[in-house]
């Protein structure tokens, strides 16, 4: 597997190649408008920003638990730039949004692409400076961590409000933003737990065991918080019973497969980690933590499908290929962490 450790120049080429492949798939190879690219962006941006945000949040709160895992999680930060660039190509798919047909100050094609890509770019730049400062142990790393977290919250909020929620314009739910950045954080913790568990399968180290335990502990906490937010959103809409508002859920809850997807999401993102990680022993079991963490990532995917699929179709085959490409990209970046972080130092 050491062949997967690439130098920065090579990495850039691979990233560009994968990016070009995805763009080709989106523009040339498949016809008809679908939400593949949106799903790829919405899902992978959470997985890429999440790990960096976890480290930054731990830095702010002086949490030492993350230390042995710092490099492994920070290595994904250049991919924020990848997402920023890939996002621009959403311009060719913009007609998936129904609001393109109306005149709206905030929701206009150019402004939509512009603000989101700029924000992602900003997030990348802040992440870059933060990673440098953090690995060198500079004194301004705290400030940079705060700035990065702010940009993270803003981008993930826009992922929620702009990318996903506007599919159902003029439906609004103010809770969408908090749910999405919490979920991105959730993904970051799951990735941290997965990396820790894989490391432990190779060789046992007390430090890494603690990282896995703490990641699992936080996942347990976030499962509860996620349930609170999701329930809080549902309850307000259910209770208010306003037709234009309840429509969002009634469409999704009265038809298969969306109904089943919703129950599945609640099970995977709340009940399963909650019950699965409640005991002390379970947080130390490598295989079990792996199962829970992977299922959480799967749950996040299903949740995004649950939002997107009722509005626009997806092309299953191409989606699988795109996801495989993105997974390969993540693994390559993880493998090449020494090179990447040397470059930033």
């Amino acid at each position: 597997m050491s062949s997967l450790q690439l130098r920065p120049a090579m990495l850039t080429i691979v990233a560009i190649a994968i990016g070009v492949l995805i763009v080709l798939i989106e523009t040339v190879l498949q016809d008809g408008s679908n939400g593949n690219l949106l799903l790829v962006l919405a899902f992978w941006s959470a997985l890429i920003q999440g790990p960096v945000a976890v480290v930054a949040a731990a830095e702010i709160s002086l949490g030492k638990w993350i230390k042995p895992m710092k490099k492994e999680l920070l290595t994904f930060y250049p991919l924020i730039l990848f997402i920023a660039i890939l996002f621009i190509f959403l311009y060719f798919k913009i007609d998936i949004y129904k609001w393109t047909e109306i005149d709206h100050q905030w929701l206009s094609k150019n402004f939509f692409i512009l603000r989101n890509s700029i924000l992602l770019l900003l997030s990348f730049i802040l992440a870059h400076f933060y990673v440098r400062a953090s690995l060198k142990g500079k004194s301004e790393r705290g400030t940079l961590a705060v700035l990065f977290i702010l940009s993270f919250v803003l981008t993930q909020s826009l992922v929620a409000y702009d990318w996903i929620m506007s599919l159902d314009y003029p439906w609004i739910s103010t809770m969408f933003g908090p749910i999405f950045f919490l979920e991105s954080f959730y993904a970051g913790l799951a990735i941290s737990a997965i990396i820790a568990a894989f490391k432990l399968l190779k060789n046992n180290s007390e430090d890494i065991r603690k990282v896995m335990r703490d990641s699992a502990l936080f996942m347990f906490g976030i499962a509860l918080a996620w349930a609170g937010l999701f329930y809080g959103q549902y309850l307000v809409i259910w209770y208010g019973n306003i037709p234009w508002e309840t429509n969002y859920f009634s469409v999704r809850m009265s038809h298969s497969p969306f109904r089943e997807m919703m129950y599945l999401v609640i099970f995977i993102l709340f009940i399963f980690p909650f019950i699965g990680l409640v005991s002390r022993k379970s947080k130390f079991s490598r295989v079990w933590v792996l199962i829970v963490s992977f299922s959480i990532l799967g749950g996040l995917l299903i949740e995004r499908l649950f939002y997107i699929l009722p509005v626009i179709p997806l092309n299953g085959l191409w989606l699988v290929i795109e996801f495989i490409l993105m997974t390969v990209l993540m693994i390559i970046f993880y493998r090449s962490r020494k090179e990447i972080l040397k470059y930033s130092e």
Partner: protein
Amino acid sequence: MKPKEMKELEYNQSLERDILDALRNPRPIFWLAVLVCAGFFAIGMATWVYQMLKGMGVAGINNPVGWGVYITDFVFWVGIAHSGTLISAVLFLFRAKFRNVFNRSAEAMTVFAVMTAGLYPLIHLGRSWLFYWLFPYPNQRQLWVNFQSPLVWDVFAVSTYFTISAIFWYVGMVPDLAIVRRYASGIRKRIYSILSLGWTGSLRQWKHYSRLYMFLAAFATPLVISVHSVVSWDFAMSIVPGWHTTIFAPYFVAGAIFSGTAMVLTLVIPMMKIFRLEKYITVDHFDKIAKVLLFTSVIVTYSYIVEFALAFYGGHKFEEAHFLYRAIGDYRYLYWMMLFCNSLLPLTLFIRKLRRNILYLFILSLFVNVGMWLERFVIIVSSLAKDFDPYNWGVYVPKWPEVAITLGSFGMFFMFFLLFTKALPVLAITEIKEEAAE
């Protein structure tokens, strides 16, 4: 913190002495302060009696604004309570050691604030003597309460919250009460002996104690979130513009912790100065709690922005009109004042020097208290004053009984807190000992 050269026993004894000194010999100024607070409390209670005798008409609330200062006060005091639980339970679970110097007074604050808050629904009821109708019990009317009503959820949430925080406070205090018992004499010794339940500090007691404390913390954390969520749903369950929005639960929870943390600062800073506890409550501790304040302030600001922006994004006429009304309508001064106190001023805490300036923190905390009270007032009143039907619009101005009862509740809260500082150990002695030994 413990100086390195100091022996453990020596440190522990000086710690006990310093903290128990605070319990001794109240000076006349203390009694004067208690008297002033009790005076306000009495005026408030008398006004309540007056309101009961005369009827709710003496208060400014009427159609269309049926929820005014009383409900504002209720939400405000429940909010104050929250940071007590945050500091003692959430930070305990996060193993944040700086909580040890704040938790006792924060928990006391929680208990007193919930007591104060609990009065307001009763005051607001009008026929206060029928308050027990809120509880589900078999009765000759053969009726049950409406479990779909957010107000009934409130009954369950707030009473559970009071019970659990009181237990949490007391459990953590028993070992410290045993220390007070050791130093006391006469009738005081008797009282503290009973209160400390015959604590000996045996292995068995500590073992169960540690477990219980952990479980209570684990219970209190989701509880505190649920309580203010339920309070927020009193509003969000309706369809009134400005109230019916999904973010309300986390937004209120963050706001509650924000205001409560400010109140902790308001209470602890004078307490520290008066009892000369600077040795234990250091600038570093304040620095950290100021960060909590800043963090929650940013969340609250985020919610303000989201709420405001989405009202215009969605293009719903009533939502748009409502948020414009907040910013430029009858209550605009309160609104801008609120933004200044809650969003703008706390941003200064990004500056490390100001976080470590105790006087500045104290003044800031007063502003935040005011700002958070205004926030609840703006949310509650402005939504009711202008909802859908122009025929149903109106402006609400509080009348003197509402002001008097509000002042009375402050009197009650501060009176209880003052009495607490003289009756019970104000710092968690055992926890500081444990921390120092590590």
